């Protein structure tokens, strides 16, 4: 239920903000949600925790309050301040405010040692980000998705907002574990609501717009509050991984609106390229499931590290299948990283300039600029960490989960082979790029079957299948601890 609140709340916030941008001041857009969320806190916990927190130590109060204000007011305000209706375009905004925030949260969680399996978490984050990029790049042709090309400053600031949100989340979680969620969440939301109200009060246009408070603004506030509460409840109950997994699925929810629209009526040609989009959706789902259920919550309580586990996987006491899988996946990981710098997509543009001159250019998109390039890296990392997980006694079902996710990613990479993450570039003449998709210019992308990357994908698939076939999983924790001790 909390996960659903996160997905629906975030999707609703994104869509309703898009509708009201330019009509309603930013302070109002960011300030309504915290006020409603505080109302829910008071309704849920009563005023007691707020009072208790108010008389707590000043240091604690400031830290909790700051974390709440940053997470639920400042970060959303930063995002809204960088948005115009279509600048950055919706696909890029969604990418930099949902799945990227999930990845930043994973990095923060790993650095705060709040996960059993940091490499799996990072692999799931890489895979999820690649899947989301592949999905958003297939929303339409020509694609509007080209991160950091037209709006690098705005998008960096959105990432900064995500980083602040991630750090604040961990701070709130740590405080809640010490002081209790009722006090901490109430105080955090109180600060966010006060600052939100203050932001509205000092902004005359925002104050004037309150008179026009209509249904969309109220719905936005509800969506933001729903996301806030879903987030707080999920990080408390299941840990930040699960919350990160939920927010990773927001692009899937927004894309599904296209299905709803077409079920109700038909509005011309369908812009979404469903074959690669569905492949990307399966990757996102797999990555989210791994992040939610495959990483574990809580610090690595003295269990083996990834590198120790990898050394064990090559050791003499290990069955041949495990060694073979580990070797193949190690090679696959290296190849997939090398594949980021090899050709992935062949691009061509044909167009007509306003002065009548014909324009023709062909170039190669590298793996680092393509969906398949990053999916190969994600799949190899997932599978390798799945094999190493056996050294960490991760549980059979968890290992299978990770390996199956790797296989799903490998298969999806084939369907996303034509997907470049950069349709718009800085060096293509503007008059040509602006005419993409019209009678004056067209751009075509075709996937390149490049040996290094596809060898990585092939090795990953074979090794993952090998690892899945292992029935009697050796118990390696004792072996590795013995090695480490010696």
């Amino acid at each position, binding site marked *: 239920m909390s996960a659903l609140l996160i997905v629906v709340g975030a999707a609703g916030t994104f869509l309703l903000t898009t509708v009201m941008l330019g009509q309603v001041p930013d302070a109002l857009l960011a300030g309504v949600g915290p006020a409603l969320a505080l109302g829910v806190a008071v309704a849920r916990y009563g005023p007691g925790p707020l009072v208790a927190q108010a008389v707590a130590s000043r240091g604690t109060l400031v830290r909790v309050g700051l974390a709440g204000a940053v997470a639920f007011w400042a970060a959303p305000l930063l995002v809204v301040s960088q948005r115009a209706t279509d600048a950055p375009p919706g696909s890029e905004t969604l990418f930099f405010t949902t799945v990227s925030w999930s990845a930043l949260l994973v990095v923060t969680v790993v650095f705060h040692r709040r996960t059993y399996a940091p490499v799996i978490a990072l692999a799931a984050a890489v895979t999820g980000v690649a899947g989301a990029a592949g999905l958003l790049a297939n929303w339409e042709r020509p694609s509007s998705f080209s991160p950091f090309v037209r709006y690098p400053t705005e998008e960096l600031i959105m*990432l900064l907002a995500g980083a602040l949100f991630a750090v604040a989340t961990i701070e709130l979680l740590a405080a809640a574990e010490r002081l209790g969620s009722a006090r901490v969440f109430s105080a955090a939301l109180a600060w966010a609501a006060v600052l939100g109200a203050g932001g509205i009060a000092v902004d005359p246009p925002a104050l004037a717009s309150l008179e026009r408070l209509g249904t969309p603004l109220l719905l936005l506030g509800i969506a933001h509050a729903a996301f806030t509460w879903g987030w707080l409840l999920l990080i408390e109950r299941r840990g930040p991984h699960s919350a990160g997994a939920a927010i990773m699925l927001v692009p899937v929810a927004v894309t599904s609106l296209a299905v709803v629209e077409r079920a109700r009526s038909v509005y011309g040609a369908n812009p979404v390229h469903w074959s690669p989009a569905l492949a990307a959706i399966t990757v996102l789902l797999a990555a989210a499931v791994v992040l939610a259920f495959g990483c574990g919550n809580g610090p690595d309580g003295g269990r083996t590290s990834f590198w120790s586990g990898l050394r064990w996987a090559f050791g003499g006491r290990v069955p041949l299948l495990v060694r073979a899988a580990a070797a193949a996946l190690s090679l696959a990981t290296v190849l997939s990283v090398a594949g980021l710098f090899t050709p992935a997509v062949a691009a061509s543009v044909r167009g007509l300039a306003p002065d009548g001159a014909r324009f023709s250019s062909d170039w190669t998109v590298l793996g680092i600029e393509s969906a398949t390039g990053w999916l190969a890296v994600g799949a190899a990392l997932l599978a390798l960490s799945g094999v190493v997980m056996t050294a960490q006694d991760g549980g059979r079902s968890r290992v299978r989960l990770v390996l199956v996710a790797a296989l799903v990613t490998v298969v999806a990479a084939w369907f996303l082979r034509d997907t470049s993450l950069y349709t718009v570039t800085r060096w293509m003449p503007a008059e040509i790029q602006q005419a993409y998709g019209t009678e004056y210019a067209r751009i075509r992308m075709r996937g390149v079957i490049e040996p290094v990357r596809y060898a990585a994908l092939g090795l990953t698939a074979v090794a993952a299948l090998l690892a899945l076939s292992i029935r009697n999983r050796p118990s390696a924790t004792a072996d590795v601890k013995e090695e480490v001790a010696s």
Partner: protein
Amino acid sequence: MKRVLALAAAMGLLASVALGASACSKKVEVQTGTKTVCSYGHTVSDDIRTIEVSSDEVALHRVETKTVVCDRHKKLETLYGDAQKAIGAGDLKTAQAKLTEIVAADTGFKMAKSQLDRIKAGQKPAPDSGTGTPSGGSTPKPQNPGDSETSVPSGSLKVWMPDSLTGFTASEPIVDVLTISRTYRPASDSKILTFVIVAEQYRTPKDAAAALDSRIKRQYTKDVDAPTIKGRTVHIGTDGKQFAAAGLTKGSVFVALEMSAKDGAAPKALKSTLVEVLNQLP
């Protein structure tokens, strides 16, 4: 503190990788050069080539196409003009000599052959009072809408953009499933800067009519005409500044023709050329 710094460093590295990927310079193959085409349909010179350049230099390279009247056809035009004057003056002997010389060089040049045949048959041909716009080596034949090359919509749409139009050199059509467009280069001495024909397939005739309404009738509201050409009503108008356009529908197909005028030329003057082109379409 160390952990926070490490975290910030990791995030900074990730952002740098992403920024770097978007900004990295690469090698791009571009076509560059100039193709000079005679307005009578043949290539005069062509130095178009494909070269590899750095992405920073891509914007500097394009393919220019110049349309000129080559020396040979200039001479033929002069002879033809003289032949018409001779016909008008009743001097069929002089006219026959001129027309014979023209037909020997190009049998499809304007009405030279037919006029010569009439003179040889002892008849007096009517002088050609044409607009002066050069015609192709052969008279363009309108294609029948039924002559579709493929079963997909774009195949049948191609009939609306013939390979040759009087006074223009056709470029390669740009084809999508439901839309096809083609630009036509005018003669270099023409007052037309650009000319494009677009044909689009809609689900219903009503949708096609709505497209005609929104994209032609409401955009080109000056100098409006609605002539009947080849049995259908065509909407012609200008924007009063630079562009003239014509639009028509045939069933669920919407066809638009758009011309832009060179600096100093009024778009109203392009309407007659639009009508001439429309007479060459199905």
